[in-house]
């Protein structure tokens, strides 16, 4: 290697390892959504000062979105590996209804019912994962089909009616307010956020997910078991969707076969919007958390101003489309800048 050593770039005035680490590219775009969020909060506080900036409203916003946040945190796992999982909302329904039916109608202990629900939901992920990897089929279409099948099962199990009267223990476990009068399910969601962040950033599994999402070939040639990884990610998202379903059942002390479906689009909107924050172009848990609360801030504020129910759909749908466009634009802009920087380094 002596030949190469002669051209060690230190004498060419290149930055040493330490300083190179510090010369990270400043990317204000990374915080754009946070800024918009802040503007929204200030605007609503000025417009509806008697209802918006109250502790009751804040704790309501934080608590009411925990289910959505948990669901979205599960969804970003397969998304990071490049796979869409459209079955998460139906799986959430399944989780909630299994808890309700077993506990209320079959008289099971509530925690046994919860475990059974989680097992049932995990099975959905196993089915997704096996079909997708064994037959090598586009996950988009597989999970769409599985989603419909699971929804059918939900109707079958529930007899198409709302099952109410779930054991209070479950409600207590998700709704008690340990601090700042914020329901505990919010803290669960934040805890999950930490776990997902750790797995994504600090474990080999997270890095392999990232590479699998970038290119199956690159991952495979670097010794990654791509099929196994995709399977695991789909199973994880189904399991977490089951958790979301259990929390959902707890917050309402009942379960009905349909209302979970309304989480699907908001979850995707949060994941994609989240990928425009903090780590641009990457699905990341903290970005997802910010996106979830950004969305609910907008919706709650508008509703407090007197907007009707439809504003929710306008906001979520619009946010998903805008998020996808934004992530493209922001990325292109950052790319130009980094490219210019890379060029000057040469």
């Amino acid at each position: 290697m002596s030949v190469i050593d002669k051209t060690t770039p230190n004498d060419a005035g290149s930055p040493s390892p330490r300083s190179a680490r510090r010369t990270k590219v400043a990317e204000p775009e990374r915080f754009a959504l946070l800024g918009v969020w802040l503007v929204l909060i200030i605007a609503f506080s000025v417009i509806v000062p008697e209802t918006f900036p109250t502790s009751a409203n804040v704790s309501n916003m934080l608590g009411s979105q925990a289910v959505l946040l948990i669901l979205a945190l599960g969804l970003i796992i397969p998304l990071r590996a490049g796979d869409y999982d459209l079955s998460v909302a139906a799986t959430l329904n399944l989780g909630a209804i299994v808890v309700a039916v077993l506990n209320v109608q079959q008289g099971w202990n509530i925690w046994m019912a919860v475990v059974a629900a989680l097992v049932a939901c995990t099975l959905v992920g196993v089915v997704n994962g096996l079909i997708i990897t064994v037959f090598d089929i586009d996950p988009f279409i597989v999970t769409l089909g599985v989603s419909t099948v699971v929804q059918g099962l939900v109707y079958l199990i529930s007899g198409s009616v709302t099952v109410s009267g779930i054991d209070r223990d479950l409600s207590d476990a998700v709704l008690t307010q340990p601090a700042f009068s914020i329901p505990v399910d919010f803290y669960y969601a934040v805890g999950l956020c930490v776990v997902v962040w750790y797995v994504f950033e600090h474990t080999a599994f997270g890095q392999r997910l990232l590479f699998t999402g970038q290119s199956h070939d690159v991952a495979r040639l670097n010794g990654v078991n791509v099929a196994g990884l995709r399977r695991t990610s789909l199973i994880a998202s189904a399991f977490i969707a089951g958790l979301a379903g259990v929390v959902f059942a707890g917050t309402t002390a009942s379960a009905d076969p349909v209302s979970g479906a309304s989480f699907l689009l908001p979850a995707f909107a949060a994941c994609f919007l989240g990928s425009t924050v903090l780590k641009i172009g990457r699905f990341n848990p903290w970005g997802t958390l910010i996106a979830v609360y950004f969305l609910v801030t907008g919706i709650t504020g508008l509703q407090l101003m007197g907007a009707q129910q439809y504003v929710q759909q306008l906001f979520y749908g619009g946010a998903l489309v805008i998020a996808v466009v934004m992530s493209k634009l922001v990325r292109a802009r950052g790319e130009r800048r980094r490219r210019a920087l890379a060029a000057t380094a040469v």
Partner: protein
Amino acid sequence: MTNAEQSEHTDDLAVTTAPLLEISGLAKAFNGVPALRGVDLAVRPGEVHGLLGANGSGKSTLIKILAGFHDADGGRVTVHGTSVQSPFGARGLRDHGLGFVHQDLGLASEASVVEHVALDGAGQARGGRRVDWKAERLRVRSLLERFEIDVDADAKIDTLTPVQRAMVAVVRAVGSQELTADGARKGQILILDEPTVFLPRHEVALLFRLLRRLRDQGDAVLLVSHDLDEILDVTDRVTVFRNGELAGTRETAGSTRDDLVQLILGASNEHVPRGAAIVRDDRAPLLSARGITGTRIRDLDLDLFAGEVVGVTGLAGSGFEELPDLFYGSTQASAGTVTVAGETVRKVKPSASMKQGVVLIPADRKAQGGAAALNLLENMSLPFLAQRAKGFRIGWSELETQAQATCERLNVLPPNPRAEFGHLSGGNQQKALLGKWLDTAPQVMLLNEPTQGVDIGARREIFKLIRSAVAEGMTVLCATSDYEQLVEMADRVVVISDGTIQSEISGDDITKDALASAVYAEEAS
């Protein structure tokens, strides 16, 4: 013989017929690197014209300019007597009466012959135009009949043999030209870009009969090929490119294989000293393959010993490019075993290969080598994640220190592990990948076209890196069609033809001439 003498010699034909396609002074550079330095080419009606040249000679660049993939920097193209200026637009010169058959043919396996021809015939027509299927079917049937091709117009592409598919692609190109031609235009121009690479040898004759038929009705065919036998067999004249320049145009009748090889390679290169290698063939080989069978490779045995660089080469489609993938396990061999460090494996897998110290650097850096959107650190740390993970946690700071050191040792620019992989030049990407794998202390390194798209300077550095790694007891298998690289780097070269080892050249016998004649050698039949 100089070019001037040669063109004089061919002039007597030219006075009788004006060329259908005439190219003069066509130039094109990519990022300042010239790919075409002003080439001339004339294809006359009633001839099959061959276009030859080594890799990187500019053949494909020319075809891509004509097809509208690239815009030319300068030069003139005359089609049917009308001069056309570059850029030619997305449809290239199709609307001026050029038909293209690309190497991969561009056929969709689920669609029928009629659908393919109809799609191409629709051209720029408005999307709402109704397709008259009855008329289309009639047109396609008459085309197939006229060229005596025994294919059902309603057959799906995947039910056809490879050569039938190639012929359908040719007929499609002919058909679409006939549609666009106004009555005044006579003769068509058809450009075939290495159409025979994926065809079984015995079936090639069928395709050539079709080409001769086209020639006999006064059309002009430009046939791009690597295969000297084909060129000698079917063409009337042949043009050779070398390093983006015109090396010469010859009448095929009267030319010999040696003339053409000489023209392709130019002046014989002097031998570049490689430095003596200490090949440990007294010890057991680091990797030994027995009876390996892949898509094109058939029942191949090969041993790789410590301290040597083994080159593998052959014509495109001979199967040589498959070997690294078969040994690494990224393509599953249908038969055979690979023995690494005394352990025999039947089903080779990339992850298991890595553990045994076998690594692969694929030819397609952007799609297979690294993830372009991720940074250098992430790309370079992928093989180390498991071993550097402390318990559950990745040691990012150690990984960064290691990546930084590797970048600086290998002179990767910019030497910044946070730089995005996709923003590096090809040479720097390749150095980073090499560094990454060298850091795993591999026993066997499998390379596929390691210097494709790499500039001259980085190329030298890569050669030196590989040589020094080999000197420390590693073995390298390098699949490439770049003879110069083999001359500079390889201790022995295995020439593959039709999926089997045809010959082996070693030591000082490895010269560009020796390689070219081995590769272009008549196949044992």
